[in-house]
């Protein structure tokens, strides 16, 4: 498994940084177009190469693949250690998929007329892509923390410089909230690393499996319980799990369109991914013990998010709260702690990235045209722009979980996992289902308010048609929605082996609770 040559993972990881370096030396005034195109070109290239990862990836091998490892701080047991497995592959591709969409969405944005500094903007985009891919591929706890924190900086500036009126407040809140959570994780990482003698995750997990390393567990707030919480709180803030969500609406509403797309599409998934990648395998007993509590918070998030969404009159806020609801689903799925739940959870992360990314995209397009996010200002958009209306409908239905589209597959699998779980069971599934129904309510309400109705407003009648770059941003989203919805099997297949191994590991560590009894249907 240990390879010394250049791994494709490293190439994918550092490609955005090369783009960053090239753009750094371009002139903002004379080469504005070239900067835009370089950013797009590198993000597309990164996406194509990340598809290569999938091609090279062997779905039967549960372990880490395409590994590369270089010592960084050998004295402290820290190394640059990257690779992909079933847990991270799809999320890497999601990241590289969302980035070109977000960059295309910025092409014609008004924000540069108001705030300028277009070069800086795309530089931050590249930096952000680098850091996000890093979070998903890195296997060393310390380097993971490095990438995790580095994502904060470009996002902070994207919100703070190019955001709406309350941008500074939102940016600072975002920064402090996330940092407060993650720095506790740093302590937990240190404790784990010092006890294990290495910070390489696969080695630590192997040590736990052989019994060479164990974190004492005898209650929710024992050593292992606290370590679990140290990691979980950092992730929960990012997800965000209710009641730690209060930064999210501010950040989403104030961020520029591309910022919202990336925030919803990728950054939030770093939290749920972290739970699967670190919390479950490192602290299996604590995960099982805490599962009902966290899943309850997840269910509260599902219903709360949906409820609050319905009450919004601001389109962006509506979509923002819907994220709280959707990610509650993912959390419940993960803490079902069986193969169906976790696989559904991971797929739902991808789905939410695509659908909610798409929602922010269309909301952004509406905002560009009317300079308001209030739903009252719209109505009858479908009549003015039929094609845009149809595309929007698909995205809205996808977000609702209509069968045949992507989210349905994820939600269905999660519900199956929840029902079959010995830890959660029927009641959780019941309340989670309620969330699906509520989602239909607020999404259809949104669609009805904005797209349906009479074309009685002069401004709507004269809505500017879609620019080619806007169309180009929508097409990949549509493709992804249908592809996952109609052909989910290859996506599950890529996760099967790794998730099975993870579930088995948790099972074996906690013998008294038989956890993973429900296998995926072939």
């Amino acid at each position: 498994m240990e390879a010394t040559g250049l791994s494709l993972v490293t190439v994918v990881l550092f490609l955005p940084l090369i783009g960053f370096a090239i753009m750094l030396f371009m002139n903002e005034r004379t080469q504005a177009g070239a900067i835009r195109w370089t950013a797009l070109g590198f993000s597309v290239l990164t996406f194509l190469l990340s598809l290569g990862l999938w091609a090279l990836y062997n779905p039967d091998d549960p372990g880490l693949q395409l590994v590369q490892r270089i010592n960084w701080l050998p004295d402290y047991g820290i190394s640059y250690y990257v690779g992909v497995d079933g847990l991270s592959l799809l999320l890497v591709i999601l990241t590289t998929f969302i980035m070109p969409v977000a960059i295309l969405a910025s092409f014609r944005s008004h924000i540069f007329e108001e705030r300028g500094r277009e070069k800086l903007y795309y530089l931050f985009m590249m930096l952000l892509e680098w850091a996000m891919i890093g979070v998903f591929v890195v296997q060393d706890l310390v380097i993971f923390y490095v990438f995790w924190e580095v994502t904060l900086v470009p996002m902070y500036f994207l919100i703070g410089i190019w955001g709406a009126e309350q941008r500074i407040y939102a940016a600072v809140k975002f920064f402090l909230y996330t940092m407060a959570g993650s720095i506790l994780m740093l302590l937990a990482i240190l404790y784990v690393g010092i006890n294990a003698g290495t910070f390489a995750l696969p080695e630590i997990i192997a040590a736990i499996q052989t019994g060479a390393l164990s974190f004492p567990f005898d209650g929710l707030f024992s050593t292992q319980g606290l370590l679990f919480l140290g990691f979980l709180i950092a992730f929960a803030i990012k997800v965000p799990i209710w009641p730690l969500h209060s930064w999210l609406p501010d950040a989403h509403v104030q961020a520029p369109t591309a910022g919202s797309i990336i925030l919803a599409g990728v950054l939030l998934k770093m939290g749920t991914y972290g739970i699967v990648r670190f919390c479950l395998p490192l602290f299996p007993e604590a995960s099982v013990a805490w599962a009902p509590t966290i899943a309850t918070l997840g269910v509260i998030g599902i219903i709360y998010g949906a409820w609050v969404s319905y009450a919004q009159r601001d389109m962006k806020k509506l979509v923002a709260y819907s994220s709280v609801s959707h990610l509650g689903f993912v959390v419940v799925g993960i803490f079902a702690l069986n193969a169906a739940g976790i696989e559904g959870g991971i797929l739902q992360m991808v789905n939410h990235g695509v659908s909610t990314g798409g929602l922010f995209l269309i909301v952004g397009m509406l905002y560009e045209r009317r300079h308001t996010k209030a739903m009252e200002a719209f109505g009858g958009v479908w009549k003015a722009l039929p094609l845009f209306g149809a595309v929007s409908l698909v995205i809205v239905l996808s977000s609702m979980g209509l069968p045949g589209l992507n989210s349905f597959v994820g939600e269905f699998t999660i519900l199956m996992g929840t029902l079959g779980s010995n830890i959660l069971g029927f009641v959780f599934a019941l309340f989670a289902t309620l969330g699906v129904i509520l989602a239909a309510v607020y999404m259809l309400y949104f669609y009805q308010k904005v797209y349906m109705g009479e074309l009685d407003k002069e401004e709507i009648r004269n809505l500017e048609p879609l620019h080619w770059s806007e169309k180009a941003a929508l097409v990949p989203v549509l493709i992804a929605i249908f592809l996952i919805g109609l052909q989910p099997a290859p996506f599950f297949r890529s996760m099967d082996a790794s998730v099975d191994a993870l579930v088995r590991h948790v099972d074996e560590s906690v013998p008294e609770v038989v956890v993973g009894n429900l296998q995926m249907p072939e």
Partner: protein
Amino acid sequence: MQLPSLSELNLGLTVPALSLALWACILLVIDLFIPRDRKSVTAWLAAGGVVFAFIANLLVYRDPGVAFMGLFVADEFAGFLNIVVLLTAFIAILMSVDYLKRTGIERGEYYVLLLMTTSGIMFMNSANDLAVVFIALELLSIPLYVLAAFRAPEERSEEAGLKYFILGAFASAFFVFGAALIYGATGSSSLPVIVDAVGRALAGEGSSLLLLLMGSGLILAGLGFKVAVVPFHMWTPDVYEGAPTPVTAFMSVGAKVGGFAALLRILLVALPALTVAEGDAVAGWQTATWVVAALTLILGNIVAISQTNIKRLLAYSSIAHAGYVLMAVAAAGTPGVSDQATRAALIYLMAYMFTNLGAFAVAMAIEKDDGSGTSLDDFKGLGRSRPLLAAIMAVFMLSLTGIPLTAGFVGKWVVFQATIEAGLYTLAVIGVLTSVISAFYYVRVIVNMFLEDGEGDPAAAATPYVQWAIYLTFAGTLVLGIIPSLVTNLSGPVALAVASLVP
């Protein structure tokens, strides 16, 4: 009594520190012949002395030995800190050249005093005897008192000098009294001799323990003043604000390095076995340093939030950073962790040196000739008028916060690691929580630079030499952040040297 021969003195080892002191004296004479309007020549001569000492230090470094019959040790610990101090002095000279000219206080003595205090710090790094520590402490402090008041007759600068002098005198008195008490308990002032005597003193009657505890407490207070930890920090904001900015920058790093060097050496070489109760494993001073570190972190970071002047903000932030170094000192009280904790303290000091000097250099570029223009509002719009300068300042602020890929993160990382390894979990939690608090005020600087709009040209004074200082510290901050192994290797055997030098 037989006088030692010259070869027994082992003078070669003292060349880095001694040459700087000698060069300062010679420079004082040379300066007489340099015309008033060409004092920058003095600056370059002083810088040359620093470079010479730096090279000499590199040659001596890694070849441990004792000089002056055991009063002076040249080990890797001292060598590493000498590197930090000499870099500080060099950067401070770069920062001073234009600044002195444009603020109208250009006098040759300035550089002489700077070299004096630098050599004082270097003696402090190497002092192996309580008496030598005291002399070095005075050599460090007295030129700094003068430098703080260098802007006289301006009131704030005079106030800074006087305040620093009076409180500094108290601190020295504390230190001397503490040293005397330890001498009383152990019968020696030599650190390696004290360590043996501590065991005997503890085994004897009870009063020795009391003397030792009081003595080490007073030493902690005296040195705590120099490094500005709570509750000995009161002077810091006023002095930092009033002193000329390059002096402040030098003081915020140099004086701390000297203070921590002496503190670490006294605690780890002389007093590692000082335990309060029979059978205790950890050193008795651990609790004291623990509490002081926690107070320092909390107070420094919280009070910094309400500051509106960048120099005062950096003053409180420097108090907070002393707290992080003190975390490592506390961790060093646990046997088995002391090597690692010492190393952590050294790495932290180096990281802090680059970042903090850089931040002061940028602050200086903003400052107007009359010393005004250092309020946080003056940073508004810097992102537009001077994007590069603002971007570099942003990196310094992120580094002070401890965001990865900067030196500050590496420093915090090693310190937290040592603290956890020593089992001081509560202290570690306080450390990380206060880091979050610190993010609040550091980020505000970034907000002002990039997100708020300002007017005018805030960076009128970014003269070439200052810019070189900024680039140098910026490079240091990034290199240390991205390739920390460069420095961790350099400091690898440092801690061992401290322990193995006991003759």
